[in-house]
């Protein structure tokens, strides 16, 4: 039933997009310009030395073959801007995997819309759907690769109103759900309402003050919190920006809250982006207690995420990417599980060689070091190496 629900949501989003005459899809919402519809298809061959690291089974290494297809479109219009991206993929591990499936699937769909109703009013909608084992170490709600595929769906819809030339508000509602195929007790639905005041200090700077109430519903209980923050968005130059928020989170637990984003196009060749965040998190809080064999939930999880990545265009044909991240989470307030910390370090190195406008070859290496003496099955290392061919048309 849930499958039908999520599939319907995905189809609905796609249908809406088509109905609006969308002709362009792009997975990168940071694009400032329209980009025509692009399809991609790719195959990759790789080696993973720890395919199912969070399972209780012994480590399994394997070579794998992966195939994926996707499409992306960006439309940046004077009245309406939107972008959409979609992709599906399948990975087949050529060796037997302990504690995991030999074949895994993933799919994602992202749709962002910004529509100017009039001079003063805007609608902003951002929607994301993912099915798979992991969204990615850094950006996803789950920091570690999971044993079973899960659905993650998030929608955030806000209406913005400019009260004066300098003052505006965005008022919105958001919903996200995390749902595992195996009916795990890790499932969680979160509902939020929020309001953000925005004051234009100058052409380069906007001050922000945000209040958000979030209610999270687990299969084993619920929680709620209020987040209050103040901050700013600042354009350092034509090609670099910084945004920052700081505040507190109040509810079942109380903690500080901070969010920092910095991006810069240093020159024609180099682009960097950094991100940091300190916040309470609702996901990835349920674990099987090894002592009792019963699922238990940490009611307090506070996480610091720090990451940076750089893209360097060596030549029109070659682009290099390097990135690293550090995620540390403090877990507490469980019934039987012991309090503890979970640290995750990741490094990514990648290169793309563009043979022509349509065909490119990629290579990447990904290193993960997960450390936790307390959280079950989170003490591991993982290395992945991959080469692939992508065709865009």
């Amino acid at each position, binding site marked *: 039933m849930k499958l039908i629900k999520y599939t319907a949501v995905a189809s609905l989003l796609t249908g809406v997009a088509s109905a609006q005459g969308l002709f362009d899809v792009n997975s990168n919402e940071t694009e400032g310009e329209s980009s025509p519809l692009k399809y991609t298809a790719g195959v990759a061959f790789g080696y993973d030395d720890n395919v199912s690291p969070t399972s209780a089974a012994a480590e399994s290494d394997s070579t794998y073959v992966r195939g994926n297809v996707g499409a992306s479109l960006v439309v940046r219009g004077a009245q309406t801007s939107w972008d959409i991206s979609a992709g599906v993929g399948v990975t087949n591990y050529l060796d037997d995997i302990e504690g995991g499936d030999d074949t895994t699937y993933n799919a994602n769909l992202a749709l962002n819309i910004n529509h100017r109703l009039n001079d003063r009013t805007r609608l902003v909608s951002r929607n994301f759907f993912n099915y798979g084992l992991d969204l990615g170490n850094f950006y996803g709600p789950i920091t570690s690769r999971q044993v079973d595929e899960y659905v993650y769906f998030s929608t955030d819809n806000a209406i913005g109103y400019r009260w004066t030339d300098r003052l505006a508000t965005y008022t919105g509602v958001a919903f996200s759900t995390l749902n595992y195929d195996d009916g795990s007790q890790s499932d969680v639905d979160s509902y939020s309402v929020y309001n953000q005041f925005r004051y234009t200090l100058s052409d380069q700077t906007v001050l922000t003050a945000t209040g958000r109430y979030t209610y999270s519903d687990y299969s084993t209980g619920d929680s709620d919190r209020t987040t209050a923050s103040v901050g700013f968005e600042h354009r350092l130059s034509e090609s670099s920006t910084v945004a920052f928020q700081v505040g507190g989170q109040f509810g079942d637990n109380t903690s500080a809250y901070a969010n920092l*984003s910095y991006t810069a196009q240093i020159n024609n060749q180099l682009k960097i982006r950094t991100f940091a965040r300190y916040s309470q998190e609702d996901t990835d809080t349920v674990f099987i207690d090894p002592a009792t064999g019963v699922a238990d939930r940490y009611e307090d999880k506070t996480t610091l995420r720090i990451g940076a990545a750089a893209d360097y265009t060596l030549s029109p044909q070659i682009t290099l990417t390097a*990135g690293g991240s550090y995620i540390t989470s403090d877990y507490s307030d469980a019934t039987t599980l012991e309090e503890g910390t979970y640290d995750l370090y990741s490094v990514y190195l990648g290169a793309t060689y563009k043979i022509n406008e349509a065909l490119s070859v990629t290579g990447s290496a990904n290193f993960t070091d997960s450390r936790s003496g307390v959280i079950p099955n989170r003490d591991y290392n993982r290395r992945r190496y991959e080469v692939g061919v992508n065709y865009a048309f």
Partner: protein
Amino acid sequence: MKNTLKFALVGALLAVAAPVASAADCYAVSKSVAKEIAAKPKHVLTIVSEQIAANEACACEIVKAAIVVTEADKTLVAQIVEQAIEAAPKKVSLITTCALAVAPDAHAEVMEVSAKYAKGAGEGYSAKGGHSAKGSDYSSKGGGNGDGNGGNPPSTPAAQFGPLDFIGGDSTGNFSPFSVFLPSQGGQSSVADPYSQP
């Protein structure tokens, strides 16, 4: 169950694609232009001029292709922009924005050319700029040009800047740099990250 989902998503993907295939024309034009310029780099200005005159709706893609393929220095970027604007004078802002996207180093040179042609170009975006009483936000009198390029973007992000515009997401202020995909749980919104699957 997994198969059902898999096929449904493939279907959804195709549903996006089917009604919009014609919009890929500019991509094809840009590929053709890139090939032509790569073969005759000395004729880049002529090629830009001719191609934009023939495919005005694809001015953005043509300018970007020309700059990228020639690995243009600041002077050549300005020349390409000037040639493009002369071929499509109503697309000053679009051409300017697209050039700056691939050659931010040439900002001063590009803006100098743009300013020369901006007056009287009659584009949808107001030239009032800055944070004036009426010019601080999108004007409904301007807007899309209906050519599939989604309208003419502002010559600079600041030209239409207002409190509803986000700083740090995309350059036209549509989206916040902070997560909206994962507002209360996870990190950043960009899907195009290096920490990808599997």
